Every structure is written in structure tokens, then in C-alpha cells.
């Protein structure tokens, strides 16, 4: 069932990290408003393949807004125009017939382009590896209900833990700062009693790793929070700063 929207795409094409890229323009006719944004790219790629051209490479996997793999900087906004929606959950009914849509990769020094719209986000893994955990080996745990946790704290920790690690916060930030990502994990664990024993070291190590990866610093513009598809709050950054400061003073 094809639709009747006619879309023009300006897409960033870049063969690999060593070569420079440029925009290419593609016309995609017969777009249905029920298509997701990525399904429109599927249709485009299908055509490029049959025409003997190189399809557009982009990251995606679950296509239900939770794995954090999809990216795409759409008309100047990470994950496109809707609040609280990832690119894979964005549908064409959010656009109009004859729209021209500009699509770029995340742009940040710490996220080098791999190909076209794909970037390397392994810096996020290294930030987690530097302290985004509670040191408990398998088999060491006590009964789960022996540690009551207030619903308020549990809910707040959950809200921070909802981060999908997509990197939209970095892409949205003019300084390419990873403060929202890093602070979400620090907050989640600082809010729970299980995370308290390591809170100081965690804050110091994760912030150090974040800086080492080449992310920029935070100037409180709030673009990260505004563009986060999972509504991660700026207050996490404030909490991280408190954790970091507290740790620095006693370290």
C-alpha cells in the first residue's frame, strides 16, 4: 500500500572516516503517511540497489524506540521534530507532501563517522566501563525485599535509567557534551542505596573518562534535555555536579 506523499531527501553521504562527505539529493515518491521514517529509507535503498547504486548506510535495530541504535539528525534536530520520539518511531504523518528533509549523522568529535549516517559511539561504553555499575559479583546478593527503597527514589532512579544511550544529547549540544548521558547513570546509582558505597569513586572516574573521550563541557543550554527521546532530566546533571564536587572535596 503506497501513499501519495512526495518527499525530497538531502542525505549526508560519506564513504568512510578517511574521506570527506557531501549531501546527495533523492526524490522519494509515493510515501505513505503510515510509513516510519526508516521505512522510507528502506524504500529509497531498495530503489538504489536496483539502480546499481550504493544504498544509504544507517544504524537501526529494534525499530521500537528502545535499543538506542538509530540516530539521524533530521532537519537540524536529533531524532527529528517530535518530542519523546526516536527516529525509528517517527512516522511520515509528521511531515507534509513536498517536504524537503535534510538528514545528517550525529556530529561530534567523540563520535567519528563510520559511513553515511552511521557513527561510532563506543565512547559511551567506555564511560560505563569506567564506573557505571555496582560492584556485585553474581551470587553475592541478599534477598531482594530485604532492602526496601522508597517508591519516590525508585521511580526517580528508573526515570534516569530509562536512557537508551543513543547519543542525541551529544548531537544536540553545541559543545558535544556527554553530561546528560553520564549524569543519568551516576544519578540512577546514587539514588539507590545499593549504589552508595561507590558513589564518590564512580563520579570521579566517569567524569574523567568522559573528558578523556573528547566530549565538550556543559554550558547549561538545556538542548540535551529538550532533544532527549526518553525525557532524561537536566536535574541529573545538577546531581552529577554535586556528586563530583562532593567527591573531589573529600578525595
Amino acid at each position: 500500500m503506497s501513499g501519495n506523499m512526495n518527499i525530497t531527501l538531502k542525505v549526508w553521504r560519506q564513504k568512510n572516516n578517511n574521506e570527506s562527505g557531501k549531501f546527495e539529493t533523492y526524490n522519494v515518491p509515493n510515501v505513505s503517511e503510515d510509513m516510519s521514517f526508516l521505512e522510507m529509507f528502506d524504500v529509497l535503498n531498495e530503489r538504489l540497489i536496483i539502480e546499481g547504486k550504493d544504498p544509504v548506510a544507517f544504524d537501526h535495530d529494534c525499530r521500537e524506540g528502545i535499543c538506542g541504535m538509530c540516530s539521524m539528525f533530521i532537519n537540524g534536530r536529533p531524532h527529528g521534530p517530535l518530542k519523546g520520539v526516536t527516529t525509528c518511531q517517527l512516522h511520515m504523518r509528521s511531515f507534509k507532501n513536498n517536504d524537503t528533509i535534510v538528514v545528517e549523522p550525529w556530529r561530534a568529535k567523540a563520535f567519528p563517522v563510520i559511513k553515511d549516517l552511521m557513527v561510532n559511539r563506543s565512547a559511551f561504553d567506555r564511560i560505563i566501563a569506567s564506573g557505571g555499575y555496582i560492584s556485585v559479583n553474581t551470587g553475592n546478593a541478599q534477598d531482594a525485599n530485604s532492602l526496601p527503597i522508597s517508591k519516590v527514589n525508585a521511580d526517580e532512579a528508573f526515570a534516569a535509567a530509562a536512557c537508551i544511550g543513543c547519543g542525541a544529547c551529544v548531537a544536540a549540544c553545541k559543545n558535544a557534551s556527554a553530561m546528560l548521558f553520564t549524569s543519568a547513570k551516576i544519578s540512577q546509582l546514587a539514588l539507590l542505596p545499593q549504589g552508595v558505597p561507590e558513589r564518590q569513586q564512580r563520579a570521579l572516574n566517569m567524569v574523567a573518562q568522559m573528558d578523556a573521550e573528547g566530549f565538550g563541557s556543559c554550558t547549561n543550554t538545556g538542548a540535551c534535555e529538550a532533544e532527549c527521546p526518553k525525557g532524561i532530566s537536566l536535574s541529573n546533571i545538577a546531581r552529577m555536579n554535586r556528586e563530583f564536587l562532593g567527591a573531589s572535596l573529600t578525595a
Partner: protein
Amino acid sequence: MSTSTKLDSKIPEGNLEQKWTKYRSTVPLVNPANKRSLEIIVVGSGLAGSAAAASLAEMGYKVKVFCFQDSPRRAHSIAAQGGINAAKNYQNDGDSIYRLFYDTIKGGDYRAREGNVHRLAEVSGNIIDQCVAQGVPFAREYGGLLSNRSFGGTQVQRTFYAAGQTGQQLLLGAYSGLERQVGMGAVQIYSRHEMLDIVNIDGKCRGIIARDLITGKLERHFGHAVLLCTGGYGNVFYLSTNAMGSNVTAAWKAHKKGAFFGNPCFTQIHPTCIPVSGDHQSKLTLMSESLRNDGRIWVPKRKEDAEAIRTGKLNPNDLKEEDRDYYLERRYPAFGNLVPRDVASRAAKERCDAGYGVNKTGEAVYLDFKFNMMRYGRIEATKKGLHNPTDAQILQMGKDVVAEKYGNLFDMYKQITGVDPYENPMMIYPAVHYTMGGLWVDYNLMTTVPGLYALGEANFSDHGANRLGASALMQGLADGYFVIPYTIGAYLNSEIRTQAIPTSHDAFEIAEKEAQSRIDKLITVNGSKSVDYFHKKLGLIMWNKCGMERTESGLKEAISEIRALREEFWKDVRVPGEANSMNPELEKAGRVADFLELGELMCIDALNRNESCGGHFRAEYQTEEGEALRDDENFAYVAAWENKGNHEWELHKEELKYENIKIAQRSYK
């Protein structure tokens, strides 16, 4: 019936309750110094893979983890919504290890092993403890203790959850444990790597061939043991709730190198998914089973009303209560809307086939929250001391309660369909979701290839012919945290004298050459049709002929159609680009080529199983009321298929013995 001599399930002797405890205390150990020189490869980083890799690294083994995504945190376990079961009996509603064990065996329609399932139930409580200790923010009550809800096929509340994103929270917990080991240098991660083959030396699995997806370069990796934690193969149907990249390649390559494939035809079709909207559709989205706690499923009683709804002349909200057919409550009063998935799916198909479907395609039923929104609203009114609330006030308060429980799911539904589920009933239809079949494993989770293991959805072991909701997360984490760390000792204990084998060994050389020549072949066909063209065609054959209802003649047709399609694929597929660079089409092509082989085996297995059980419904074998009709005399076995090459297979049977549960016709009435 007797078990094939090629299959030794290694279930320990003794009482069911004692099997695991005794075995765990007697399984050979590897001392800490020796662990440091033993290398383990883990393929896949979902719940099973991450949990296993972290736990084994904590114990001292050297671990390498491979995943095709850009980070281990992306594995598709992350998308699991509803929850995870555990026999904690926190709700004081009579739950116990035995009850979880019994529900799982019964839910699986008596086609799972007693020993494995009991072990699963035993360790279920430890999983919750472990996750909480890691900082997984499960839902809690105001008193600070953990909250529970119900899932299908049970009459207790034993499901732990974190809103509608339990899988995400559990996976991020396991991932944080994994990254901790990475930070300590005990685990090395190879992300954006795809396993293309296993390497066997002298009858034992000794490593893998993997492709670096960025450079396209093939790599050789040695391991004393290899763990496949690579998930299920639902994407053989093209449209499923799986992630786009989910595939069977690792399991299939292992199968071709000697690992038997268990019950390949056992597929779970999930009853509550968002219906297909058009040809462009690339995947289907699940609406969690937890919604059936509060949503009632119905279609109109009269065909003319269904017709009027389909053509937009009638708004479903206006259809009177007495004109609605709550068919699950009607047919299964004891379990109502919470019957197991296979039963709910077939019932939806039955109504739609009979002409009562409610969307344009006639393939959808309603999942309606209005009734329970009003119920919750009245409770809220009482709590707040409102004495004469209006219906509108009640409804609004009820909506708020529902939003807190399922908000993210309702948002997702609205985003995909453009319809607001707070105002209109959801439309849902069954879709492929999970595969109970997988690599055959023994009690140690070892496949028929020594040193090669399969964990989580990749193995066949615990769910029989139908998996209960919230049990996949339980099994993945049980295998990874609490089973493999013990059982792997039984094998590695005898490997402590094996030095790391250099990857210049002939077996690595040959396996790499084979993988390379297959890639070259895919690139050089240079035909006229895209990979997706073939994948969609295969999916349609599988859905129509090996889906919710199967028949002898349909399966036979499917087999010959798949063979023809496979031949066409290798003559006419077009894979653009180069082998030595990032090339997503090439990745897809390799996966679809494997699906084109697996699909045939699934149909062969379905054709062989002349009975209906769980998700496997052969139209020829049903009761007068249309329920699955098992044949325990002839089919109480695991079908383990040995690959003989050239698309030929030999069937080996593992007899299923029920010593603790009385086997009966499954009834949810």
C-alpha cells in the same frame, strides 16, 4: 519410544527437588589459577550472553564477547516489555517453586524437560536478588517493597517489572556488570562483529570466524569453549517483533557443523501486536502481554456490526455491551483474558477468519481498557473521598492509573497507528514473537558438539511448545548467571592441559576460506533483486503455511516453494558494494541465505509432528472445540535434527519422561 543413542541429556539422577542442588555440589571445579589460562568466547550480548560473560569473567576465565550491534547494550533483550517471573511468593498468593515449574511445563503443553524446568524455577528467585543488587530499578509499592503483576497462563502474581521496559532495565543491569569486567580487563568486547562460523578441531569446538563489520575483514578467534547466546530466529518470517538484525546465522552455522537443532517448528505467535498497516512494513511491534491484566479482548457479536466498523460507519465505543463478544472470557472462564499466548492467538485468528475482524484488512481484534479504567477510577474516587464523581471524572482518574502502569506502551501505540488508545480501544493481531525451538542442549547447556554451548532463546530447552509470558527474561538470566558458571566446569575441568591453539591451524584456515568464498559468491551473483525481496517472499510462505495453523499439504507446498526460492536467490540476488568495507546489504544477504535453509527444516519438523501442541497447531489434529490435540503416545519427544549436508536431515528423538507431573490435556476453562 526410546531416546536416540546420539542424545544424552545428562539429567542427574534422584528426586526432582534434589537434582540441581546435588549436581551443583558435585560438578567438577576448575581452580582459580587454571581459570586464568582458559579462554571462553561468548557470541551475543543479550541477557544470556552478558550475564554469562560477566559471571565467567568474575570467576577468572578470559572472556571475549562478540555482538553485531555497535554496543552490547543494544541486544534485543532490551525490547522485552512486560516482566520477569520468579517464584518469590512475595504476594502470599500460594506461589512456590513447584507451582512455577508446573505452570511452565503445562504452559509448554508437556513438551519440555522436567529437570531443566525445575532448575529454572529454583534459580528464579536468585535472579531478582541479583538484579536488585545491581541497581535494577524494579517497580515498587509505597512501602518500598517490590511490586508484582500477573501474566498469561498463571493464577498468581509473580511477575516483576519496570514499567513496560523490564527487558531494558535487566539488560542494562547485565551490561553494567559486563562493562565492569571490561574496565578490569577481564573481558574484551568485539562489537560490530558478526560470527560467520565455528571452528572444530578433533571433534571439539575451538573457536569462531568473525567478520569485522566496519572493515569487512575476517578474523579468527580461539576459545576453549564457545557460548552461543544469539537469540531466536523469528525473523525467518520477515515480519516479527524481533529486531531488524536478529538472525539465525550463528546457530545455523553451528548446526551445519554438527550441533543438532531441537524442535525447529516451535514458534510463538504473540496475540497482542499492532496489526500490519501496509507493504512497506519492516517489523511488527508488540503490545505487552501485561496489558491483558487490564484490557479485555473482544469483537462484535454480529458480522454486520464488524462490517460497519471496518467501513467506518460504526464507532466501536458506541457498540452496546451486549453486542460485544468477549470471546476469551466466554471460552475460557477460568483464565479469561490471561490464557497462554498460543491459545489467545488462535482464538483471535478463529474470530477473524470467521469474519469478525475489525480493521480494514479484517485481521484485528479489540483490546479495550474502558472497563478497567472505570474500575480504577472508582477506586481512586474512593481513595480521594469523592462521593459523587461524574463518569467523566471517574474515567479521567482511571486513565491516569492506566497511564502510570502502561504509559510508554500507550504512547508507542499512538505513535505507530496515529490513534489514541486512551480514547479508542487498541486494535491488535497476533505476530511472530519468539522461537521455543533452537539448538539442542543437554542439562549442562552443551550442544551435540563438545565445547559448544547454547544459552537463552538460542537453545530449545525450557519452554516446550509454548513459552509463558515473562519467562524468556527469566531463562536468559538463569542460563547466564546461575547455570553456565557451574555446568561449564564439567567440560573445562578436562581442558586445563589444552594450550591455546594458534589460529594458524588448518581448521581455522579452512573455515575462514569457506566464509570468504561464500561472501564472494554473494557479491558476485549480481542479479536483479534485492535481499529484502527474497526475505519478504520467504516470510510470506512461512506465515501462510508454517504459521499459526499448519496442514500436511500446506507444509509440503512450503518445502518445495522454499527450495525454489533458495535456488532463485543464489541466481538472482543483488548485493551492492564491496566485501571489504561496511556493507549492511551484505550482512543481510548472509542472514537471509541461512533463513532460506532454516525455513525448510522448520517445515520438515512441522510436517513430522503429526499432532498439535502449544504453538504448533496442525489443523488435522484438533478437538471438537478447536483446541490443540496432542498425541503423547507417539510424539512425547524432542525432535533433534542432525544436518547431513545437501539439505538433508536425520531425526533423533529424545523421549520426554514425566515422573512428577501427571500429563493431561491442557485446560484453561
